[in-house]
């Protein structure tokens, strides 16, 4: 497993962990205290930020060739997947309130920063998953 894969795994795990913990926390708090106080459970999403430390944890690969055309190609495709995933998330986050609540409704302005934080996390999640998928297809030739 190369450095890019290790970073991708750490980001996928930290994001998934943060998401699961926040969903559980919001669900428990919803039944205990109800909304809007239950939204405090979203603070667990900060666990995803730990993935950002992975480039510092995983050092550069040893050997003469650490990055070749195939790595560049996988990285390029992963970047595209990240952009597409993030744009899709933004589309859903902006369109769902319109269709669920209706045209006359209005929602708190607090949702705006939360949408772009979600977009940021989604981009890195899709990017990491695309890297893992890209290398996974290569089978044993990935090292």
């Amino acid at each position: 497993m190369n450095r890019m894969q290790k970073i991708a795994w750490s980001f996928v795990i930290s994001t998934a962990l943060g998401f699961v913990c926040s969903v559980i926390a919001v669900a428990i708090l919803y039944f205990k205290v109800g909304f809007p106080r239950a939204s405090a459970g979203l603070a667990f999403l900060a666990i995803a930020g730990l993935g950002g430390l992975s480039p510092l944890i995983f050092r550069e690969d040893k050997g003469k060739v650490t990055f070749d055309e195939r790595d560049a190609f996988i990285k390029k495709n992963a970047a595209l997947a990240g952009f597409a995933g993030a744009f899709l998330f933004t589309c859903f986050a902006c369109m769902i309130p319109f269709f669920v609540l209706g045209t006359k409704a209005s929602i708190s302005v607090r949702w705006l920063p939360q949408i772009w934080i979600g977009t940021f996390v989604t981009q890195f999640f899709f990017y990491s998953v695309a890297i893992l998928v890209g290398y996974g297809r290569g089978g044993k030739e990935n090292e």
Partner: protein
Amino acid sequence: MNRLQKIAWYQLVVLTLWVAVIAAVAAAIYYKDLNPELLVLPLLFGVFIHFDRVFFPLRPGKIEYDERDAAIKQKAINIAYGIFYYAFVFGSLIAYLMLGPMNSVPTGVFVIMILGGAVLLRFAWSIAVIILYGINSKQKSDSDLIKV
């Protein structure tokens, strides 16, 4: 001018005209008190953006797309998404700071935001492609070399 540049120019012109027509219709609706549903009509013209492949098709037997074009296209996508993301972040922050955390925004604003974001994404991509080819303009394309 190669195919990707033509597509970029086409998108830039169509988007500019489209936004101008939408702005003109919106102004007419506002000042002449017309039916707001009229705004749907100019929105339909947005479909012309996707006709670039029809007007500039890949021709058999001619190299119209190589590694350099692919690299420029990829870089333009990165730039366009970066601009979109920062525009979205700053737009959200400005709205948040101006309105305050206790206020709310109509759901329609979110739809306008994403539509505007999509237009900005294409607009930025087109400009980035034109600029990136412009920076490397000394490197002639295959068609130019054949002419020489």
